[in-house]
């Protein structure tokens, strides 16, 4: 499905998210598009294949085009072209770098090679020709000759096939390109930047390479060659290294091509620096919430039990069991405690059942309630403390929403939690907005909750601090304003020099206003 309409101001490059998959990133994209109605957006959705998909968001009217880029599928193209041998010799050199921590230079080289042939190249030449096979063998022999060949072949197809797809896609014209992750979306942004001369930026919510690294390290489906030697120096590059290196290349090329490298909280910047981002380009634009809406929630005062709540899916990563145990500990001090676990129970049914069982075993049926998926707005007015026991988080919106309503938080020291509760460097000294605890510690969480519930003056100070901090630094309008001015700057900036200006055989002319 491709609707190609008028050129857009900003082209969003989205890998596996909006508008087909719900989640934090998609909601953020939806907010940006909806919050900047004066700009025209186009979307390139990078997807594994052409399976039909249902949109889970109502796409705003200022989206002029949604295109699909299928990473795992390729049209056949021409069966043959003249001078394929030199083409593949050149491609081989760049790919060899891409597969061993390459950079934007390799990406640029590939773009220049592919651009003039874009309409003709396809699976017949890139995958099925004998010349392409010889290139693959050369690449294998040069860097991976001790890996199992079958596995290498499929790894190569997956990794480089995605890159080919990125190189072959007809880029929708736009004044600026915005990738919402590195990976293939980032590679596409790098291509757009070098090919059109228009500026690109990247916003990372989680760190793509980091998540891929974890996924690859844990993957049992990537075959690891067993080696007899125990000496680290002897272990040759294996296929997991290849996976990591290719994603490393995509990420670095994206950072190098980007005008700005953004993320939603400071903790991510360490990873971005490690992956080669230039600190001068790095910037944090936090996610924001609708402060007015949450600040307006009326507080239920008096005549109710002290209430704590964990808002989130009941899944292992949220470590709900630690929360339950903490409530057990706290209930010994505050007998009338009420605790809510608010979030869908269906995602990991087994874990949810274990949680319910734990509540029964600890005799907390009168204390803890599983509400299932509910509208948080209806509950915030009667919650006193918001609690997160997660072992991993990005920038949890729920802390900001509760914070806007003046509800202090007890949260583990993951993701952006500390920044939200204690404040960032360079912000006004507003004091703590709650308590930051260690991970998987029911005692620490219980103490944190007790500190807030048992000390009215501390509670009042935290409530004021968090409300003020969210109002000042996490207002969605500020986030939108930041992107609005960033986009305006990008849209207005002149074209950079690009390969077509020199060689005269560019694939596509830049869009002009």
């Amino acid at each position, binding site marked *: 499905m491709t609707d190609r309409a008028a050129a857009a101001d900003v082209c969003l490059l989205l890998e596996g998210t909006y508008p087909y998959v719900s989640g*934090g*990133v998609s909601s953020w994209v939806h907010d940006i598009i909806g919050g900047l109605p004066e700009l025209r957006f186009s979307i390139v959705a990078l997807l594994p294949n052409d399976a039909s998909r249902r949109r889970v968001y109502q796409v705003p009217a200022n989206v002029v085009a949604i295109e699909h880029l299928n990473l795992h599928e390729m049209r056949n193209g021409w069966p043959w072209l003249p001078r394929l041998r030199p083409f593949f010799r050149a491609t081989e050199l760049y790919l060899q770098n891409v597969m061993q921590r390459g950079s934007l230079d390799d990406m640029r080289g590939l773009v220049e090679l592919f651009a003039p042939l874009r309409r003709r190249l396809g699976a017949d030449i890139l995958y099925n020709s004998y010349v392409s096979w010889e290139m693959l063998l050369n690449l294998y022999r040069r860097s991976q000759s001790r890996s*199992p060949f079958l596995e290498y072949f499929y790894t190569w197809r997956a990794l480089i096939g995605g890159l080919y797809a990125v190189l072959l896609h007809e880029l929708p014209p736009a004044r600026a390109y915005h990738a919402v992750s590195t990976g293939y979306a980032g590679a596409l942004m790098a291509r757009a930047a070098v090919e059109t001369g228009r500026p690109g930026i990247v916003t990372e919510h989680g760190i*793509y390479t980091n998540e*891929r690294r974890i996924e690859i390290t844990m993957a049992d489906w990537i075959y690891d060659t067993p080696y007899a030697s125990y000496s680290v120096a002897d272990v040759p590059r294996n296929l997991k290294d290849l996976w990591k290196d290719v994603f490393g290349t995509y990420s670095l090329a994206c950072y190098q091509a980007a005008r700005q490298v953004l993320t939603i909280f400071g903790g991510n910047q360490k990873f971005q620096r490690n992956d080669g981002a230039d600190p001068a380009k790095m910037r944090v634009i936090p996610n924001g919430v609708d402060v007015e809406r949450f600040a307006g929630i009326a507080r239920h005062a008096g005549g109710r039990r002290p209430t704590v709540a964990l808002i989130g899916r009941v899944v292992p990563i949220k470590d709900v069991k630690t929360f339950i145990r903490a409530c057990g500990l706290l209930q010994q001090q505050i007998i009338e405690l009420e605790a809510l676990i608010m979030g869908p129970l269906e995602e990991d049914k087994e874990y949810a059942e274990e949680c319910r069982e734990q509540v029964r075993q600890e005799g907390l049926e009168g204390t803890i309630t599983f509400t299932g998926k509910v509208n948080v707005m209806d509950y915030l007015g009667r919650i006193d403390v918001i609690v997160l026991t997660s072992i991993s988080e990005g920038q949890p919106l729920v802390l900001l929403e509760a914070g806007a309503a003046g509800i202090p938080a007890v949260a583990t020291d993951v993701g952006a939690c500390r920044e939200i509760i204690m404040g960032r460097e360079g912000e006004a000294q507003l004091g703590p907005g709650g308590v930051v605890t260690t991970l998987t510690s029911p005692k620490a969480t219980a103490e944190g909750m007790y500190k807030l519930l048992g000390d009215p003056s501390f509670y009042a100070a935290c409530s004021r601090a968090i409300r003020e901090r969210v109002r000042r630094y996490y207002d969605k309008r500020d986030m939108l304003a930041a992107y609005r001015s960033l986009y305006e700057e990008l849209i207005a900036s002149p074209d950079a020099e690009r390969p077509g200006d020199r060689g005269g055989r560019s694939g596509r002319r830049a869009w002009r206003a």
Partner: protein
Amino acid sequence: MAGVGFALRRLAERGDLLGVVQAYAHSAAASTGPWLYTIACLATLTIYALPAVGSEGVTLFRAIVTYNFAFSLVFSGGLVRVITRCLADQIYERRADQAPGMLIGGLFVLCLIQAPIAVPFYVFVVDLPPALVVQGLVNYFLVTGLWLVGVFLTALRVYTAISLSFIFGLAAAFGLALLGGEWAGVEGMLIGFNAGLATILFLLVVRAFAEYPYPAVRLFGFLRTLKPYWSLALSGFLYNVAIWVDKWIMWLAPERERLPSGFVHNGVYDSAMFLAYLSIVPSMAVFLLHLETRFYEKYLRLYREIENHATLERIEEDHKTLIEELIAGLRNLIVIQATVSLLCIILAPKILEFLGVSYLQLGVFRFGVLGAFFHVLLLCLTIVLSYFELRAQVLFLTFFFLATNVVFTFASLGHGFAYYGYGYFASALLSFLVGALVTFRELGRIPYHTFITQPPTARAAPEDERGADGTRAGTGP
């Protein structure tokens, strides 16, 4: 963080390399056996029946049977090849329970194709008494049935059963035809011969239903595979045209005969050629045995090593061993066939004299033996290509053989009697040379073909796809 990207595993999905091909290649090869047995029976029959029905009777009998063989083969060859392949697929996927249905459906469709050709021919084109028309048609459909049923048993490699059925049935056909000839001339001879063929068909069908003890379902399911396997159907058709086309062209030679009933044939050419074909039996048998044992072992090893995480270096070693094995097999084939062919050519006068065939056929027979020498080599090359699923190359070689056979046979026609058979010989020789070039070029690229041109890719269904994404979706409420 969820919601960005998709599980990498989705990207790394892959197909299954070691396919079904060997089962198919094998059946295609083994189906030459029955054809040769039948020629042997026909050749001897025409000699021994002479006293009973006279030379005119023998000629008519032979014309009917030859026509039936030729045209039933040509018009069923394509479909039979596709069914062979389907069956091999099903056996490989362990769902051969559809085989009985396919056998019945296949017979039905073949008769449906053949009837509009055979019936008008016997009724309108040739002038035969009604009893012979009926027996001629019965013979036609029996022969058609044999081509198909044989496939179902060769696919299971029950060669002994097939051979015994054919030997027993042809012996019966031989005896009954002689008896019938004594009793009622050509008509009786054909009835006897048909009874023998019917026996073979019966034995094979019984055996087939015993080997595939399943209810007959999905009778016409195989028709849907005509589209993906169109090149098999086409090369099956073209190959059978190719092996008959020189005879048809020779039916235009001045020496041809037109029987009173209307059959046209060239007795001198046809029978010499049939005899010459028999010279390939020993070498073909040896080569097939070699393919099935030593070559197949190396072939399996190559694919197993690939599946077993072999490095490229290892794969290349196995590839080399495989080619060496193949070359050894071809060398044996050439040595044996050369010996047989040489003996046939030297002893040609004695052979013809022993069989009571006219000396006029000496030249044709010698060219036929030489042609068969290269023909069998070509056939073996196409079988080897089939092992690697190189259908386009097989189609090309088949077409090349057909085209050269047409051109050269026509050319030889103009040069007179001394050159009869030269066209077939030249065509087989040239086709073999081209075939060897093509085959060895492709054999050098087996790893390429294994990974690139032949893998049956197993793509995940869209449902799985959505599921995989769904589980990663969603952060928080």
